[in-house]
């Protein structure tokens, strides 16, 4: 190891660079494809460098929509996706913080039963309970609405479990000091627990936002109104144009647009997340 430092440095770099190229290639193709006119992509060789249709393609996508795929502008879909993803993220964080708080800090009958109930639902993904959930949402008249998109997805056993584990690591003396300082449960929650959970919240925000953004099956089931379509559904509709020539330029453009918000969230929150990690220690 020590003797071959230079050779091993070169080798590791080559492997890493190869990995990056391998991972980035599809993204590159998508970016390039979204800047060409549709016909350019049906002929081989497919172009590897940007074309001159970027502005037209994206304007068509964002403002007018693609007639072959329903004609809904992507800006509407992106806003729908954003509302849904943020709603799911904030909802999940709020609910799991509160339920973890109850499970860790309060002694009530059947506390452990509730904990295990929550824990067991970890094993049930949305797809498993999709029929009963759909039935409930339909009877509550929440089809084709933001609340119908968001509310059924905001209970999170994973996040509850994560916050529970974190709360258990907070020393009892801190709770006791707060009690002596005259802080009741709600004040303790807001003044002490929330600030201490900052890093966990940031980490979860990233994961949950992407989870929410990428929802496909659920919005597909409960929305029939085009104005409520999300962008992930939009990609699928681009691919399924039926008998026409595949509109790869628009499909790829949609994919690129769908990627931007999650990338931004990761970039912004990651900085916060790392800062939190460096700053707070117990």
């Amino acid at each position, binding site marked *: 190891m020590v003797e071959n430092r230079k050779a091993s440095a070169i080798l590791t770099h080559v492997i890493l660079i190869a990995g990056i190229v391998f991972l980035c290639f599809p993204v590159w193709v998508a970016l390039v494809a979204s800047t060409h006119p549709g016909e350019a992509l049906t002929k081989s060789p497919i172009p590897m460098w940007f074309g001159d249709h970027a502005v037209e393609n994206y304007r068509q996508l964002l403002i007018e929509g693609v007639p072959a795929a329903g004609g809904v502008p992507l800006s509407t879909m992106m806003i729908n996706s954003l509302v849904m993803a943020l709603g799911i993220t904030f909802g999940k964080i709020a609910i799991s913080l509160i339920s973890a708080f109850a499970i860790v800090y309060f002694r009530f009958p059947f506390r452990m039963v509730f904990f295990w109930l929550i824990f067991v639902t970890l094993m049930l993904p949305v797809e498993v309970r999709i029929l009963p959930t759909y039935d409930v949402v339909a009877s509550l008249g929440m089809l084709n609405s933001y609340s119908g998109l968001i509310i059924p997805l905001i209970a999170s056993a994973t996040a509850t479990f994560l916050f529970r584990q974190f709360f258990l690591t907070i*020393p009892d*003396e*801190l709770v*006791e*000091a*707060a*009690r*002596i*300082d*005259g*802080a009741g449960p709600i*004040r303790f929650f807001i*003044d*002490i627990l929330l*600030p*201490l959970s*900052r890093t966990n919240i940031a980490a979860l925000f990233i994961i949950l936002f992407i989870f929410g953004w990428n929802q496909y099956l659920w919005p597909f089931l409960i929305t029939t109104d085009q104005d409520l379509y999300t962008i992930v559904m939009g990609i699928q509709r681009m691919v399924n144009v039926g008998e026409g020539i595949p509109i790869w330029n628009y499909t790829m453009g949609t994919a690129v647009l769908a990627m931007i918000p999650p990338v931004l969230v990761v970039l912004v929150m990651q900085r916060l997340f790392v800062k939190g990690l460096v700053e*707070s*220690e*117990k």
Partner: protein
Amino acid sequence: MAELKLDNVGKTYPGGVMAVEGANFDVADGEFIVLVGPSGCGKSTILRMIAGLEEITQGELQIGGRGVNHLEPGERDIAMVFQNYALYPHMTVRANMAYGLKNQGMPKDQINARIDEAARFLQLEPYLDRKPRALSGGQRQRVAMGRAIVREPSVFLFDEPLSNLDAKLRTQLRAELKDLHKRLKATFIYVTHDQIEAMSLADRIVIMSAGKIEQIGTPMELYSKPASTFVAEFIGSPPMNVLKGDSVGGAGLLSQYTGTAGNVGYVGVRPEALSLGKSGLQATVTLVEPLGAETLVHLKLGDDIMIMRGAHGIDLAPGAEVHLSVPDEALTVFDRDGRAVVSSA
């Protein structure tokens, strides 16, 4: 400022484990009381019951003449300093100190005035805007004290506040604590397992063992008139030599005793009461520990080991045969249950 009254206060855990059997004692206003004992003796439980962190399962606790059994900790007019400081890690020193007052709804300028005063007193002024993790252990403990001081409570509770600090800092902060008590003139209740801390700080010591109070008294009372062999062997460093009355050494010591002995079980003598003489008890030196100002000499009498506190530079080697002189008034006699026999002498 308030006095404290524990009337048969006890704690039994749900499983039936009794942590504290009914404790009875009063604490005068402005008194410095130290609860001392080995770990698991219930001293911390008593402190936590006074604080309201632990439910009292029997008896009544009064602070300043009012029963507080069912009051929340925040309503008891107490402040507590924890062993691991328990500072809020995400708050600055100032915010840590302000938190309790803020919860009481005190106006901001008044809070700041109190914090500034406490910070000056504790020499924390340069650190007010730092977070606890940027402070050393000693500074953190000062902040924890500051957090208690600004609330101006009637009773200060300390749960082994110096145990996490190194020896030098401990000595320094011990002196500061004593000074603090003098200046605040408040009631202090302090828990420690370190008998030296207890001796040097306390007006009165409550010494506990296995959930029971063994003895309550001033440090000198406990030292010179231990109520039981437990107290005798807990207080003092090295502790009192306690020998069985019917062993070789014990019988030898008892032969010097002139008081009414009665039902003798054990006999004790402080290391410093022993001295070398021309005649008297014969013993063999087994170990010599020179400590600078003094020298500890381990002696063997039959099967018994005793420690003598000798002068600096005492010239003895292991194996030497010596004679011990023991003044009879230095002996403490205990009955077979380990309780001190009150002698008329």
